[in-house]
């Protein structure tokens, strides 16, 4: 990990920490971490995770990720992330699309880590959910098979 990125991470964390008490403004990861969403280093889960958090090293566990083994439809893949960790951010990645980051949630003071969302997957791939707790990243992954769905007209 290079120094600049490490600083960037520190800044990001600091910013997030500072923002939390003030409930008026939000952390927009799309502005602070544009490169993780789009750009040359957004294509693989590892790269995007590094852009977002400064590292792609995660500890597997403590995060529950529910997703179908076989998606009913690649355009609507239901994802459910939950965890009992007191994490500050939660992010969802997949490797079935050109870019891998899907969403970053900032967990508010009263928020629980229990998020559902529906995502698009162009092909079969792995979905990874990451919960950032302090400086540690906890993760869970699941393979979702996507096939062209439905018989008939």
């Amino acid at each position, binding site marked *: 990990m290079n120094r600049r990125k490490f600083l960037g991470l520190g800044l990001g964390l600091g910013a997030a920490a500072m923002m939390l008490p003030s409930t008026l403004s939000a952390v927009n990861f799309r502005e602070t971490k544009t490169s993780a969403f789009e750009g040359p280093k957004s294509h693989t889960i590892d790269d995007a995770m590094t852009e977002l958090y400064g590292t792609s090293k995660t500890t597997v566990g403590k995060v529950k990720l529910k997703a179908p083994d076989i998606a009913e439809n690649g*355009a609507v893949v*239901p994802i459910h992330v939950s965890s009992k960790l007191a994490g500050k951010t939660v992010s969802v990645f997949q490797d079935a699309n050109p870019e891998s980051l899907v969403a970053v949630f900032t967990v508010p003071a009263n928020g629980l880590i229990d998020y559902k969302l529906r995502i698009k997957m162009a092909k079969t791939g792995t979905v990874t959910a990451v919960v950032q707790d302090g400086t540690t990243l906890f993760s869970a992954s699941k393979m979702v098979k996507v*096939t062209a769905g439905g018989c008939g007209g």
Partner: protein
Amino acid sequence: MLLNIVKSTALVALASCVLNAGEFNAQAEKDRIALADYTVAKFKDAEKNRDRFFPYSTDSELKNNIKKDVKFEELAMGNYAFSIQGQFSYNEIKEMPPYEELVEEGEEMYNSNKAIQACFPKTTIAGDYPFFDQTRNEVVSLTQAINECLVNSGQKKWNEKKGKMPILQAYFAAESTDAEKKVNIQIPTAKAAEAYERGKEYYYTQRGYLKLSCATCHVQGAGKRVRNESLSQLVGQTTHFPVYRLKWGKDKVANGVGTLERRMAGCIKDQGQVPPKTSSKEMKELLYFMAYMSNGMNVDGPDVRK
């Protein structure tokens, strides 16, 4: 041996003939019960009964994806009744189903169309169609009834497959579901019984270049797989229409909902045959038969499918 068979079947035939005289739905009722028994037996324990029902399915499929002890009422959910995988996605999508706004749109459509209100004063009618019109001596589908109503009041016909037609029907279906209506198909006359029989023959006859009948996939084949699709069972196949299909709604939500006729045309096309016209006698009688097979089940439309 053969003589025995002839004797016994002759007796059965005679018995059903006698019944036919009084109760025109006797044969249909017999078919319905036999089909329900078959389907329930099939999904009792797929793993244990694999030799009887699932000779070609893999171990993991039978073990991990086909539910045991599927109840009769559950069969209305189509393949989600037994497919564990499918059910997961289905339940997630049902939390905020994409058709909800279309139902509202259908309600507005109903409220703003005086002619439709006059033709259909009751909105909880989803389970009553298609019905056998005794004065016309033909099966009348809901789609046909709506279009006739429009034409009679000087309005233009609607597309029978998508657009306004299924959206209005979605409203009827939702109202019927809320009122806990059940599918209630009557066979009032001998002519109606004939229409039913023709529909049945259509369903069970192989057609198209693939030489499949509807039953190959949805009676004998129910629960099995075609590529990655779990095949749904005939019992309960009509209860949830109009249906919102994820596939149809891919580009535009309003296109996602379609009538039963739209679905059927797609299915017959997959058999490799030119489907009958939406309001043709063949199509309506086929639907009449299918709806009868779901008699007594809850109306649960509109619903969402793959």
